């Protein structure tokens, strides 16, 4: 049962990644694009965790943690840049 569930959820996550990519492409304003990118980071974390369950190994948590941190920092840096035109104040 778990194998099927993992596959099903992986399909769901991939669909949502494609939807995010769509928003990233059509996003009318650049803020929409940043939001789509941020959501894509979170979705890919979920996908990596799922891959860890699929392969029965806890090794991928480190990768997920790194992506979480880098995603947050890059989103905030984008936002700061758009807010002030300058990353380092």
């Amino acid at each position: 049962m778990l194998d099927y569930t993992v596959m099903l959820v992986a399909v769901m996550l991939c669909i949502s990644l494609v939807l995010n990519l769509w928003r990233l492409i059509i996003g009318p304003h650049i803020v929409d694009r940043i939001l789509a990118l941020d959501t894509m980071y979170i979705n890919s974390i979920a996908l990596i965790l799922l891959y860890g369950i699929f392969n029965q190994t806890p090794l991928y948590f480190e990768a997920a943690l790194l992506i979480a941190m880098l995603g947050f920092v890059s989103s905030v840096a984008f936002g700061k840049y758009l807010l002030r035109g300058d990353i380092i104040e």
Partner: protein
Amino acid sequence: MSFLMELIISLLLLSGGIFVLVGSIGLLRLQDFYVRLHAPTKATTLGLGGVLGASILYMYHLQGYVSINELLITLFLVITAPVTAHILAKVAMHHRVKLMERTRNPELVETSRAQLPPTPIDNSSDDKKAGTNREV
């Protein structure tokens, strides 16, 4: 693996997947940026929480002890998601992103953009409000 364990993990995974999917559907479907901001910040965070919970339970089953690494990811996301949302909303206000026509109190964007207190909400005439907005 006992059936009950498998069931719980599967349910957690499924609910997580559904919430992530709903977040992405909302991101694509909703009409203006501020409304769009609601879907990913809430639904996607909870969805990831579900997947992480399933992962924690599964690894507990696999190794016999709870590795607290995953809890750290959850904690980190719960702390950072509101910050990202807040900064993106600020950026949208700064750039005067288009609002939905139905949005109520759109005049608050201008005062908020200047980080001023709102003009008092008395039922003064509309042209007076517009005047104060233009000054800001």
